[in-house]
Structure formats: C-alpha cells, structure tokens
C-alpha cells in the first residue's frame, strides 16, 4: 500500500519535470492571451482583462475583504454543520442498516431541493441574519460527505470485525476501533469536495437578502454591467475554492492517511424479495410527506407560503385551474430536461472519454489532471453567468454549464477507477503484447465502470443544481426560472409543486441510473454488487 502511495506521489512530479514550459512562464502566457482577447472584445462586455481585474481588486480591496470575510464566515459555519450532519447520517445508516434505503432516499431528496426554491423559504424561517447562508452552505455539503463516509465506514475487511467480535465486543467497539479510523481517509475526500460547495451555498444564501458578502456584490456587479467587478469576484470565489480543496487534501496527507480505495458508494444491493423495493420506495415517499407536513405544522408556518402536501395536490390535481397549472409546470420541466439531459450525458461522456484517452496517452495526464482538480472546485455561481455570457442564452449555454459541472468529477472518478485495474490483469495483457486499445477495452474499461456509474449517480443532483441555477441566473427559461418567478409573485402553490416535482424527478432519475448500473455491472463486475 505504501509503495502504491509512493508512485502516486511521484507520478505528477515526474511528469511535470518533462513539461516543456516552466510553470511561471505558462501562466504568464495564459494571462497575456487573456488580456489580449479581453481588450479586443472590450465593446461586447464579456471578458474582463486580467489587468482590469487586478485593478479592481486593488482599488476595492477593503470592500472585497469585508465581503469575503462575511461569506467565508457563513461558509465555514455551514461547512461544520453540514459535514457533521453528513457524518452523523452515515453513522445512523451503519448502526441501523435496515433503514439504509429510507435514509439514503431522504438524504438524496433533501440534497436535490433546488437552491432557488429553498432560499426564500429559509429566509422566512430565519428572518434577518446569516441563517439562510449557513443553512444553504450546510445543505450543499452534507450529501457529498455522507456518501464517502458511509463507504468508508463499511470499507473495512470482514476480518477486522471478526477480531472485535471474537472478544465479545459489540457494534460500538467496532465503530470506535474499526469503522471510524477506516472512514477517516474517506471523510477527508468528502471534505475536499465540500469546501468549495460550502462557499457556493453561502453565496447563493446571500441572494435571499443579506447585508454583505460576495454574493451581494455579484448581484450588484452583474446588474451594473461592471465587468471587472464580476470577474474579480469570480476569481476570488474560484481561488478560495481551489485553496480550500488543496488545503484539505494537504491536511489528509499530513495525517498520513492512505488514499481511499473507492471514492463513491456502491449501489444499494438488490433486495432479496421482489416486493421489498417498491415497499421501501412507498415508505420513503410517506416519510418525506410526513416530514414535509409535520415540520410546517410544528413551526406553525402560514399556509400562504408554506404549502402542505395536500395543498400541492389540490393545486395540481383537484383544485380549479389545476389542468392549466399542471400544463405550465410540466412544460417548464420538459424545457429543463431537454437541456439537462444532453448536458448530463455530454458531461459524463466527455469525462469518461477523456479518462480513457488519458489511459492511452498517460503523459497528458500530468498536465490535465491538476487543472481538472482545480477547475472542479470553482463554484458554478461564478462560472454560470460567464459561460452563458460567452455562449449565449440559447440551449448551448445551458447545456455547457451542466456538462461542465459533471465533466470534472466524472473525469476524476473515472481516473480513480482506471487506476484500480488489478496489476495482474494488466501484466497479463502486457505478456501477450496486446495493443493499448485492446488493453483498454479488455481490462481498463470494465475496471472503470463501477466508478463511472457511481459518478453518474452523483451527477444527478449536480445536474439539477447546474441547470436550475443557469436558468435562474442567466437564461430565464425552464423550471429554474419558473421557481424564481413564482416565488416573487407569491404563487407558492406552484413553487411547492415545482419543488416536489424536481425532487421526484431526481429520485426517479437516480433509481433509473442505479438500475442500469446493476444491469451493466452484473455482466462486468459482479463483485461490486456482492455486499
């Protein structure tokens, strides 16, 4: 294991040495091209030049510092609460394995709630202050911590548990001595993804009516056509996200943790009895409805904006005008899916495709991978308006935003999967002097599939987040824009209907991908399904 880690560490450094340009020079070249393009297109208000961005940062350093401090404070609090919730949820699932399907489904459902809809509701619940910012930051991170920690808690070999049991010790001892230490590297992997997400959540939270913060400044800058300000904030958000990503990674190395074996969760095993899956799904639905209604009743939220499940039913099915409202909702959802679907597939395809390409030409990896890891951490709020500005408000812009959101995590997960191809299998292909392509198709592709599918499942909430954010902030179409509109015109029946429909669509898409995954993996890597 230690030898494997050594090569991992040595790899990029060795490749970097072969890089034709020294690092600083390459960066300078990029900045120069950027500056040139920006100056050439100054009239169209798309790209700010690096010199303008730097100028804005210097002349507004006090303002940016204070805003950054405010956003960071919310992000850090949300990071702590969200990760705590993710870890506790994973512990709960491990201690109550029977509740796994239910808890996982609810966790996914809550994670898929669109920011644009949850924001105003949280603002009403909390009143003034940083409550919504912190909560949205927490909501943005708990799921991506929950999944790897759950895998980590279960990643230990059976022998370690037998050891604990052979001394007559129970679950709590196994948790303390085996599961928790084994989950630590997985926690670090989760925290790494969480750090940029928390920052994004805090920024979106500020859209709900905050006094200060980078989110506030973003809105102001976009509306004022203040290009240097918009780009300066995007650069800061991207920079802090990359820094946080790197810092958590460095902390993990400092603790000398072995890198996790598998980054993402295997699919929930197929149930033994045929009626079990539908029954569990119904149970999850009932629980979701109960929590929805119960929490509103407990907090005594006014029906004017806190619509109960029965209000949504009335609005969409039995009430007056239900048909027209249903038609409007489904039209918006259809419009959204028509963009989210291609973006989702393009992101997955490009991510997996590039990972395979890099397996054929490993030298490229040294240049591409660090860049991808860095870009993965840039929050969508910074990129979405820029991409749409650049590519226009049509389908291309939105599809690109979704694809970009999915592309980087997929690439990294697939690379991880490829690296897990058993050495002996590769040696076998080597012995017969097979072509790289044959090796790729015969050995590496099957080894990559579990990671690919895990990534495909994780990409569903990411796609929803990306498409609704792009629609809301940039294109003004689809269900993202519908939710923003109805929230401002007090059409809360439609808002809650849209939330429920998006949640349902997300869970169904997740189930669909999981079913496909089981079908494919049953042919290629049955051992992944054995647990």
């Amino acid at each position, binding site marked *: 294991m230690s030898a494997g880690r050594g090569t991992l560490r040595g790899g990029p450094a060795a490749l970097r040495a072969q890089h034709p340009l020294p690092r600083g020079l390459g960066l300078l070249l990029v900045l120069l091209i950027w500056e040139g393009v920006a100056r050439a297109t100054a*009239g*169209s*208000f*798309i790209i700010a030049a690096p010199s303008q961005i730097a100028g804005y940062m210097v002349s*507004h350093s006090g*303002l940016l510092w*204070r805003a950054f401090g*405010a956003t960071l404070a919310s992000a850090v609090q949300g990071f702590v609460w969200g990760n705590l919730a993710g870890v506790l949820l994973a512990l709960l699932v491990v201690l109550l394995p029977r509740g796994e399907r239910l808890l996982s489904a609810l966790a996914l459902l809550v994670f898929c709630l669109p*920011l644009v809809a949850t*924001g*105003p509701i949280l*603002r*009403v*619940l*909390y*009143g*003034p*202050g940083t*409550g919504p910012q912190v909560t949205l930051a927490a909501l943005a991170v708990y799921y991506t911590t929950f999944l790897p920690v759950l895998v980590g808690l279960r990643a230990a070999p059976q022998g370690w548990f037998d050891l604990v049991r052979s001394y007559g010790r129970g679950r709590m001892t196994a948790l303390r001595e085996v599961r928790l230490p084994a989950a630590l590297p997985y926690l670090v992997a989760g925290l790494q993804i969480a750090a940029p997400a928390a920052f994004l959540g805090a920024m979106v939270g*500020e*859209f*709900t*009516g*905050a*006094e*200060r*913060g980078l989110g*506030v*400044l973003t*809105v*102001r*800058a*976009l*509306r*004022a*056509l*203040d290009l240097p*300000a918009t780009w300066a904030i995007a650069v800061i958000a991207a920079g802090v996200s990359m820094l946080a990503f790197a810092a958590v990674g460095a902390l993990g190395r400092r603790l000398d943790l072995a890198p996790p074996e598998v980054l993402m969760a295997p699919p929930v095993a197929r149930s033994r009895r045929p009626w079990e899956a539908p029954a569990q799904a119904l149970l999850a639905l009932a629980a979701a409805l109960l929590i929805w209604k119960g929490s509103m009743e407990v*907090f*005594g*939220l*006014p*029906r*004017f*904006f806190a619509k109960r499940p029965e209000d949504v039913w009335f609005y969409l099915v039995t009430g007056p005008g239900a048909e027209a409202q249903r038609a409007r909702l489904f039209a918006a959802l259809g419009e959204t899916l028509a963009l989210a679907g291609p973006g989702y597939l393009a992101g997955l395809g490009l991510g997996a495709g590039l990972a395979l390409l890099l397996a054929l030409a490993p030298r490229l990896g040294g240049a591409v991978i660090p860049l991808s890891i860095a870009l993965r951490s840039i929050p969508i709020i910074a990129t979405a308006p820029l991409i749409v500005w650049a590519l*226009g*408000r049509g389908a291309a812009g939105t599809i690109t935003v979704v694809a970009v959101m999915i592309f980087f995590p997929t690439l990294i997960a697939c690379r991880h999967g490829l690296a897990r191809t058993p050495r002996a299998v590769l040696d076998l292909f080597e012995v017969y002097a097979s072509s790289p392509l044959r090796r790729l198709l015969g050995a590496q592709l099957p080894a990559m599939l579990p990671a690919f599918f895990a990534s495909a499942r994780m990409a569903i909430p990411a796609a929803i987040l990306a498409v609704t954010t792009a629609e*809301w*902030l940039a294109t*003004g*179409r689809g269900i993202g*824009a519908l939710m*923003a*509109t109805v*929230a*401002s*015109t*007090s*059409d809360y*029946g439609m808002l809650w209907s849209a939330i429920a429909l998006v949640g349902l669509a997300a869970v169904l898409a997740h189930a669909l991908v999981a079913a496909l995954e089981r079908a494919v993996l049953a042919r290629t890597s049955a051992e992944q399904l054995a647990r």
Partner: protein
Amino acid sequence: MHLPTLTRRLFLGGTLSTAGAALLAPGRARAQDAVALQLSWLHSVQFGGSYLARKNGYWRDAGLEVSLLPGGPNAPVEPPVVAGTALVGISAADYTAAAVNQGAPFRIIGVAMQKNPFAIASLPDNPVNSPADLVGKKIGMALANTPVLEALCSINGVDIGGIEVVPTQYDAAPLVQGQVDCLLCWATDLPVAMEIQGVESVTMLLADHGYSVHSQTYIATEDSLANRRDQLVALMKGEVMGWQDYQADPEAAAALSVEMFPDAGLDLATQKLQAERQVPLMFSDLTEAEGFGWFTEETVAANVETLKLLGKPVSPDLWDRSILEEVHG
C-alpha cells in the same frame, strides 16, 4: 382571517437582536418599539428616504426602532410581512395583487413610486420612443414579465405578435452585445448602469403610455392595521419625512446610501444618477398637493384597470389610505 403568531426567528439560534439592541441602548429617554421594514431589493438609494428617516431620527423620536431588511434576487418580500417578521414591506401593486389573490391579507397603505419605473431601454441608433416602435424588434426580458408587455400592447393597440421576445435575465449585457434591440427594465437601474459604463441609451417609460401600476408600495397586514396602528403611523410618518428630505437633496441621499452601507458595493456616481432619475417617478403634482405616498380614487381606478389587463384583478379596497391620512392630518 386568523394569523398565527410567529416568533420572529423560528429556530436554530436566532437572536432577538433588534429588540435586544433597543432595550440595551443607553441614553434613550423612552423604550423603543422594535419593528422591521422589509425592502424589496438590496440596499441602494432606491430606499434613500428610509435611510434619511433613520439618520435624522424621525423614527426614534416617534418611539420606533426600525430595522431595514434588505431584499435580493432570491429574497421573499411578502412572506416576512405575513409571518410578522416585518411590520411593513415594500412591494408593488402587481406583486401585492398577486399575493392577495393567493390569500395574503394585505393592504397597500402608501405609494412611493407614483409612476411605474418599468421602461423600454434601447440604443440611440435603433431607438424605441413609442410602443409602436416595438413592432419588428427583438426585446430582451424575463419571461415572467410577459404580462407587462401584453398589457402595454393592449393599452396602445400594438400587435404583440410583431415583437420577438428573447428571454434574458436582468442585465444590460444582451442589449450592449447586440443580442436584442431593446430591454424591458427599470428606468432607474440598467439605463443608469449603461450610462456609467459610457453606453448611451434611450428609455421609454411605460407609465407614459398608459401603464398605471403603483410601485414601491407599502404593504401591511389587515391584522397590523387593526392592532398596530400606532406603529404603522409612526413608521409611515418617518418615511414621509425622510422622503421629503430626499426630494430636497437627492444627492445627499445618494451620499448617505454609500456611507451607511459601505459593504453594499455602492458607487457614488451611480447612486447620484439613480437618485436623480427616480425623483420624477416619486414626486408629482399629486404629492405636492397632498404629500408623499398619497393616492386618490382616480389613481387607484387606473391601477385596477391595468392590473385587470395583467391578469391580476383586484378591488379598490386593496388600497387603504387611513394611515396616510393620520400621518398627513
């Protein structure tokens, strides 16, 4: 309608900061009632009169401690008023009408913008000076605002089929980049932003072409009107006095906005221009005669008419002048 009494912050460690500050603040002669005014957007000179009211102590003298809650692109305005977090909210007649049709127990108790700020902004070499000019043009707007365009066309007898609507979000880039010929926007923000960026533009105010919708309206619940009249009167009195100061010196209001909210990223030149542009929308012969915020049966009737075209039928009872009458009386 029964309103559940909500605590100010429902859960997760909220602090009653405004109430606490009011109780603990030393040197005050009398106890202050802590209330909140929910603004409809981020802090800017758009609410300059309120800032002047606070700075000049008009509320403090009336025994009121008013916290100004900023809005934002994803901020709810009407719900905090329903929930009781805010005593008064700044809405607009069309939004208020929509909320009332959804069962919210609101009344409009004052009107800050007599003329609706919606405008069509275009570039000078391809200008839109009248609704008829819209035919054959590409207009950039949020699809949510389609009813506004429909109302404008139907008032002015323009065939909406001749206008190509391009869905955009709310910024001026599509116009500057040439993706659209004109934009549906507020006269007080995107044209101001363009001018500051050195892009000249032409604006056509919808209000000058029959579109009568009160904007920046003060809303309160029926419950507050019945049970918290004193606070409403005190709050509105401060607003009226603040906006009178604003009218006297908009530039000072712009400077105060920048000074009061150093973290809002406000730019003094922009604020001054915006302050100047919103004066004709807020002050008219009517306000000269009756005072800031006033409305009459005629203006209300014109609003009811336009709101009907917007698909938001309301009764004139939505407007309640009793608070203003006490303030000005």
